């Protein structure tokens, strides 16, 4: 029973229409750089003898490889910049921050929900945002 309802839920979930199911619809999305900071502080705070689990290490290695913003300061600034765009869903904001795209067209293709009508973000605004995000990336 539980598995069939889980499967049904899964079929409804689709990032391109911003449907994430009951547990994640309003969950806080995290930038890879933010996850890197959180896991880093976890590693430094835990006793050196404690063994971290495989998933933790895999995630740690992954976020440190792909993170867009190298330090805490740039991550905070990027997050502040993204959160100014109230018309975007949290998922879209984080996708924009994580993928570090060059042009609005690329963003529209990779994040199809940006093309949905309810979004009032025009290409000019979007390219400004992408340029700002890029500058945080280069400052490092």
């Amino acid at each position, binding site marked *: 029973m539980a*598995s069939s309802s889980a499967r049904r839920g899964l079929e409804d979930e689709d990032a391109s229409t911003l449907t994430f199911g009951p547990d994640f619809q309003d*969950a806080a999305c995290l930038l890879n750089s933010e996850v890197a900071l959180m896991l880093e502080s*976890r590693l430094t705070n835990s006793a050196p003898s404690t063994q971290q689990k495989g*998933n933790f290490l*895999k995630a740690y290695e*992954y*976020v440190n490889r*792909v993170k867009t913003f190298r330090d805490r300061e740039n991550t905070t600034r990027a997050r502040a910049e993204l959160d100014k765009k109230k018309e975007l869903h949290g998922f879209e904001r984080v996708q924009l921050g994580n993928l570090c795209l060059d042009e609005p067209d690329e963003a529209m293709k990779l994040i199809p929900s940006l093309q949905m009508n309810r979004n009032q973000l025009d290409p000019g605004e979007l390219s400004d945002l992408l340029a700002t995000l890029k500058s945080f990336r280069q400052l490092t």
Partner: protein
Amino acid sequence: MFFYIEMERDLLLLPQHFGPNINRYLRDKLIEKVEGSCSGRYGFIICVTEVKKIGKGRIREGAGLVTFPVKFGAVVFRPFKGEVLDAKVTVVNKLGFFAEVGPLSVFVSKYLIPTDMRFDPQSNPPSYVSQVSDEQPMRVTVASEVRLKLIGMRIDASEIFAIGSIKEDYLGVL
């Protein structure tokens, strides 16, 4: 994508741990039990960040064990269909390739690789190479970084397996 969410779990505690350190025992037990686990509902639980609330314990009949409902916040990795992710290739064969996104394994079938990329069994390790002649050939091989889109997922009780595609604009080798 990574999310921060709040969850609730029931924890069993032995009577020998009742005492001034009970909260620490519960916390340790929670971390041991949920960190590194994977469920279809929440995805991969990477890290417990804080314990929000420990509810009233309930003694099990016939035994001294007590169940505590514990509310906590955690960082989880939960993939969604349609999401674009950067991944690292782990295995390449003639059917396609496997790539890793942190704890998640994604399979990209050869039908979801652009048709101008051919499997090259001669190379070591095996790879997919683009055939466009006027450019530097693009090569997908072990340890390559690719940008892919998740197009489907299979969720078991304790494992998530995803199917990805690099056959769209702006996807492929980074």
